[in-house]
């Protein structure tokens, strides 16, 4: 399959099941909601070493938030429920409770309920106040700027992590420009995050390593500088490969995100140095969710 001169590999991206939740951070204005959200989702690029993958889903209008203030919705993904709950609580406590004027609400009502502010309330040292409003429990924790308002729990749902595609280009700037264009389009969609810095990964990995302590290592088949010395998957003109990783609440959400992302890359086309689109395929070793590139773009 070729779109605008870009060859779409007959391969698939492999993804794996995760647990996810959404939190809504509001603040006096969008600036402070975003500061809190950025802190909460910081160092959350890969479950390999961060404990979770998290990202900003979108900015919320005041009319969309529980307290009528500007807000930001955040998605957090982890390999298991316990890990997710721990990461959510740690990050909420360090990055939202501490952030001026912030409040924290559940972004998913359904599913198993996991603590959001349920345990953060103890920061109130006995002065915290519970309020049950319309069936939801809130905690009012006295803090130095007034009160930190938080919902007690949020819903945890099954999700999919690790959807991806690779952009193969003739130069590093061209690969990055294509990925940036893809991220702009993908960020318009709900229910997905691209957890890596700016949404783009330059260190795509393969499963396993020559070093027994490591579970993943550099994807040498797609490393341009190793073209001559490894079993490469790159043609001579490819000088740079970048990956976009997508976590989504459902497989369909990732399907949609991959479609718009790949389309944005293909819109730049061969004229801008984009040669191929491929995907992280690990021969079934990584996970049960398969995203076939040509089916998605058909």
């Amino acid at each position, binding site marked *: 399959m070729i779109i605008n001169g870009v060859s779409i590999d007959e391969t698939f991206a492999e993804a794996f099941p995760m647990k996810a939740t959404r939190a809504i951070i509001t603040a006096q204005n969008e600036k402070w909601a975003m500061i809190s959200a950025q802190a909460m989702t910081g160092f959350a690029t890969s479950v390999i070493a961060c404990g979770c993958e998290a990202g900003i889903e979108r900015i919320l209008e005041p009319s969309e938030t*529980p*307290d*009528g*203030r500007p807000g930001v919705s955040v998605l957090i993904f982890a390999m298991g429920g316990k890990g997710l709950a721990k990461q959510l609580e740690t990050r909420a406590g360090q990055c939202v409770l501490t952030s001026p004027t912030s*409040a924290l609400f559940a972004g998913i009502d359904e599913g198993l309920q996991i603590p959001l502010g349920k345990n953060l309330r103890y920061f109130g040292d*006995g*002065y915290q*106040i*519970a*309020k*049950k*409003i*319309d069936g939801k429990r*809130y905690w*009012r924790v006295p803090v130095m700027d*007034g*009160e930190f*308002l938080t919902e007690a729990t949020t819903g945890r749902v099954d999700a999919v992590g690790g959807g991806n595609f690779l952009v193969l280009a003739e130069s590093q700037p061209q690969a990055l420009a294509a990925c940036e264009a893809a991220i702009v389009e993908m960020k318009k969609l709900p229910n997905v995050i691209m957890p890596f810095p700016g949404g783009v990964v330059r260190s795509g990995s393969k499963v396993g390593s020559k070093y027994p302590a490591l579970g993943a290592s550099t994807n040498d088949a797609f490393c341009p500088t190793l073209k001559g010395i490894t079993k490469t998957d790159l043609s001579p003109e490819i000088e740079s490969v970048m990956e976009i990783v997508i976590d989504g609440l459902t497989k369909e959400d990732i399907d949609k995100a991959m479609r718009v992302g790949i389309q944005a890359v293909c819109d730049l086309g061969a004229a801008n140095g984009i040669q191929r689109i491929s995907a992280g395929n690990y021969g079934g070793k990584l996970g049960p969710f398969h995203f076939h590139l040509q089916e998605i773009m058909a």
Partner: protein
Amino acid sequence: MSALTFTVKQATQQRVDVSPLVCHLLKDMTLADITAIELQNGKRKIRVDELFEVSGSDSQNIVFRKSFAKLDFIGKELEAGSMVVHGDAGAYFGIGMKSGKLTMEGDVGLYAACEMKNGLLTINGNAGDFLGAALPGNKQGMKGGTVLVKGNVGQRAGDHMRRGTMLIEGDAGDYCGARMIAGTIAVMGNTGQFLGYAMQRGTLLLWKAPQLSATFNDCGSHTLAFLPILFKSFSKFDSKFAEQSVAFNRVQRYGGDMAEKGRAEVLVKL
């Protein structure tokens, strides 16, 4: 199906316990069974069809007509469905109510909503003393749900209240929120003496400045983030509380009762 309607034929001299006439108890009964129910009337029994003219068939939608102030226990422990009462009611209106909707078009007596657990109880007229309170000797009053009163309420509204929301459009008598354990009472009108007496936790939300005892301490003026959410939750009610113009988030906060735990608050609109 039309609502199962009980129309009073003639008011009785003695009080009547009408607690058997609630949706969940009448669910699978025929009209003949219902009319044969015997109600306690003073020290004697009275058949339902002696006291009421019964019509309609939908037992999950009950209406009382020409109700009078000696009908006690209307809507006792209501578990589901809807009940509407035209006229007045006696004591224990909606006592121990668990779910559903209970509406009074007129006035109710003592202990309305007492030990209520859930659901929506609306009183379009006035309520007597001990609204949402605990029965004498019991430690916990209303434990959940919403009570909406469009008129005034008597003394000790919310006495020993444990959880839930009480919305009063009119005035509240003395000892409003006394011995309250938790929950929210909002009063648009005036409040009497001894507001929040021995109150442990919970919120009294007031539109008018109260006469507070020395055991409530001024914590200053604040903009509280939970108030818009609270007022938004009132928007579904047929009440002044649903109007945007009555909502506020700027309050003077008083903490107390310092003679008790001191974790309660009185919030007064600024």
